[in-house]
């Protein structure tokens, strides 16, 4: 059912790139139109604009009304748009015979969107409801605090607010469409029950008609770091500790991903073992490297709360343990940990290969952000060549930077930012099988 061949890029005369993964017999097709336009492209004061553009396109064109689009979805097909930090993607999961219709809808709404005032009023109202909803969710609040402090005073660090949404006009939408919705900044990824030749022919007939334009050039964000805390009456204190890290085109990205795996990617990871298994301080804890186009973010995420009768604060205990484990990876990575991370990545690739949705996302994002589709077998080969010393070096590179720290919830007992900086500067002792756990006491 899966295709072993590496995806090849076909570029249409207008600059649109197409990658196809054939899965004959699956009975459906996953398609994603990936566009280099996301939250980070929102002008200051108009945060949420990129998301609004995507949502407004789903209100149709003179050829495809909102009702036409919804009717299309009534027949077992699905269409939706997602706006992320770096890109917007228009997704469709359709029966094979409906692929052309889905492509026609996307082409039509991009070329000739209605952008009606009443639709804009509706979408602004919905966006404001979503903002209220996000404020209830501690993970969303933490994400907002973290990016604001990590990328201070930059577009990538800002979050939409009721005020920024209220400022958006039809003219803003039209200007963004004109500047960013250009075929040379788009990748069409198709995975499923459709052969490559037919898929390319359909794309040529539809998206191939979009006019050629130069893609805008982005300024690379700069990681700043710092501290941001919000006291709230919640059961748990959620924290995020983040560092600048290798991006999608950085040769250290494989080692950074493996570092995340070793530190907090599984039940046998260091943070899970030390913070949850050994001390029972959390339900969930993770570490991962988010590789973006112009750099990455290595993020540790955790949340903990206290029994009302507890004498000491879990958060006070947890932060030094996390810092100790991060620092330790700059010197100690065992061959077993390396092997485990490699096998885990091999397994995740094997699982992802079974999924047309996963393949579609992989082809679309790598082609868009890295410039070409990545072949999973080649990536796997590179992961196999990473050594413990590579991971030590990349850990040193990542953890020597000044971090961004965000916390939400009860803040009592939370170490100061200066204390966290101090903890991250401590030289770890060489780890031995019998070495004791790091001290529970806060260090002064």
């Amino acid at each position, binding site marked *: 059912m899966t295709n072993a061949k590496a995806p090849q890029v076909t570029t249409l005369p207008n600059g649109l790139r197409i990658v196809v993964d054939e899965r004959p017999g699956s009975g459906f097709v996953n398609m994603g139109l990936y566009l280099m336009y996301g939250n980070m492209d929102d002008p200051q004061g108009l945060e949420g604009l990129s998301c609004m553009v995507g949502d407004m396109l789903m209100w149709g064109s003179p050829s495809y009304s909102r009702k036409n689009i919804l009717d299309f979805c009534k027949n077992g097909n699905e269409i939706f748009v997602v706006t992320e930090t770096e890109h917007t993607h228009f997704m469709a999961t359709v029966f094979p015979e409906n692929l052309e219709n889905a492509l026609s809808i996307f082409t039509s709404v991009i070329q000739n969107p209605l952008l009606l005032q009443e639709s804009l009023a509706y979408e602004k109202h919905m966006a404001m409801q979503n903002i*209220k*909803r996000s404020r209830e969710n501690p993970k969303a609040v933490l994400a907002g605090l973290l990016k604001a402090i990590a990328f201070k005073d930059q577009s990538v660090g800002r979050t939409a607010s009721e005020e920024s949404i209220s400022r958006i006009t039809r003219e803003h939408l039209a200007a963004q469409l004109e500047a960013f919705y250009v075929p040379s900044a788009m990748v069409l990824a198709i995975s499923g029950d459709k052969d490559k030749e037919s898929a390319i022919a359909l794309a040529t007939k539809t998206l191939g008609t979009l006019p050629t334009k130069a893609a805008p050039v982005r300024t690379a964000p700069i990681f700043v770091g710092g501290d941001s805390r919000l006291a709230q009456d919640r059961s748990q204190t959620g924290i995020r500790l983040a560092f600048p890290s290798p991006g999608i085109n950085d040769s250290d990205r494989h080692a950074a991903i493996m570092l995340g795996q070793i530190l907090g990617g599984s039940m046998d990871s260091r943070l899970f073992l030390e913070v949850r298994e050994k001390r029972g301080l959390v339900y969930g804890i993770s570490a991962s490297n988010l590789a973006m186009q112009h750099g990455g973010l290595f993020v540790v995420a955790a949340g903990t709360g206290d029994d009302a009768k507890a004498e000491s604060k879990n958060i006070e205990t947890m932060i030094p343990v996390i810092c100790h484990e991060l620092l330790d990876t700059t010197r100690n990575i065992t061959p077993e940990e390396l092997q485990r991370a490699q096998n885990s990545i091999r397994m995740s690739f094997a699982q992802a290969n079974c*999924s047309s*949705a996963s393949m579609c996302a992989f082809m679309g994002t790598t082609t868009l952000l890295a410039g070409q589709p990545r072949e999973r077998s080649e990536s796997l080969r590179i992961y196999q060549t990473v050594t413990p010393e590579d991971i030590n070096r990349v850990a040193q590179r990542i953890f020597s930077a000044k971090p961004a720290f965000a916390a939400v919830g009860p803040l009592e007992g939370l170490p100061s930012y200066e204390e966290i900086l101090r903890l991250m500067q401590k030289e770890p002792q060489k780890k031995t099988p019998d070495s004791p756990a790091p001290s529970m006491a806060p260090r002064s």
Partner: protein
Amino acid sequence: MENRDINITTLANGMRVVTDRTPWVETASVGIWVGAGARDEEKGASGIAHFLEHMAFKGTTTRSARDIAHEIEAVGGHLNAYTSRESTAYYARILKEHVPLAMDILSDILRNSTFAEEELAKERTVVLQEIGMTEDTPDDIVFDLFQETAYPDQRLGRPVLGTTESVSRLTRDDLTGFIRQHYHPGRMVVSATGNLRHEDICALAEKHFGDLPAGDPVPAHEPACYKGGDLRQVRDLEQVHVVLGFRGISAHDPDYYAMAVFGTLLGGGMSSRLFQEMREKRGLVYSIHSFSASFRDDGLFGIYAGCTPSHVPEVLPVICAELVAVSSQVTDAEIASAKAQIKAAFLMALESTSSRCEQLGQQMLVFGRPVPLTETLARIDAVDKDKIHALVARLLQSTPTLTAIGDVSHLEAYENVRKQLAL
């Protein structure tokens, strides 16, 4: 379309083994589905099934907690578990060559866990953290309140995680007693899918579980007794979270497939009635969807809505009006659309060995057999307007269950809701 190669074997002790071979993949999913969950807990021991699921990973007579995680992850595998009201599942996802290891570990954690006191104390704090996390999530809380209001003072109404008080009381003896009472081979299913052979899985199941004694008869289940009612909690939240529901249907009900079609057309996606009316047309809610839960002898059907306090007065009247309308005015086109959406979802689920594995395990527990996809689709196809209308009338005959949290001061009165739903 079937694209499944399913085989079933029953071991001498009653344990069932079901496999679905997908030779085109490099991976496999294997798990043990146990027909015991939160509903089997005694009063005062709420959360024991879930706590046991956690403790199963904390060490056996031959493996420490670290060994369990380490062995499976050393080969790139992933081990996990979940607890629901009527079942508990322990499963692994691995590369095809590591199926024997996965079966060895799964059987070890189910049969030889030691539940050491030290581990028990630590894991209790982890579960209490999990409960704390849920308490920070309003749309989780409102569903727990809904279940509790639908089935007050009953096993089926208690939260799967238990409460801080009940979990704090659980002992090692409670865990071992629960296993002795409920983890019997006749209530357990080995489900495996992926690049594997049925006879190999049977041999592994025989090796690891063949000598598991049948156990004493399981005590009779407390029958579900749906009550319904009204429960509102004032909280300082940005949104108001509302769930309105009714007595639904059991997994064995003839209307089971009509419920799937009805749920989809009423609140199953962007093209559903509720989404169109409440979000697209009126902009009253950000989130709205319907859901159904079918237990072995009863069920629930409900609608969740999340909205700002200013829209609260309108939310319930509009939902009620839609429910009354749908009891007599469903169109053939809506039914056809819902059927197509369900069919597409089934096709997509076939891509994943994990989905196949879970579906098989659950179907064996609930129906005693894997339900062929062709049969499912034929039953879905047989649903028509009359069946939907009859189902809605049946749902609306029950006492509504209404739960809400947030600024509920302007939420429609319960008695008004009942009046608006009168057919």
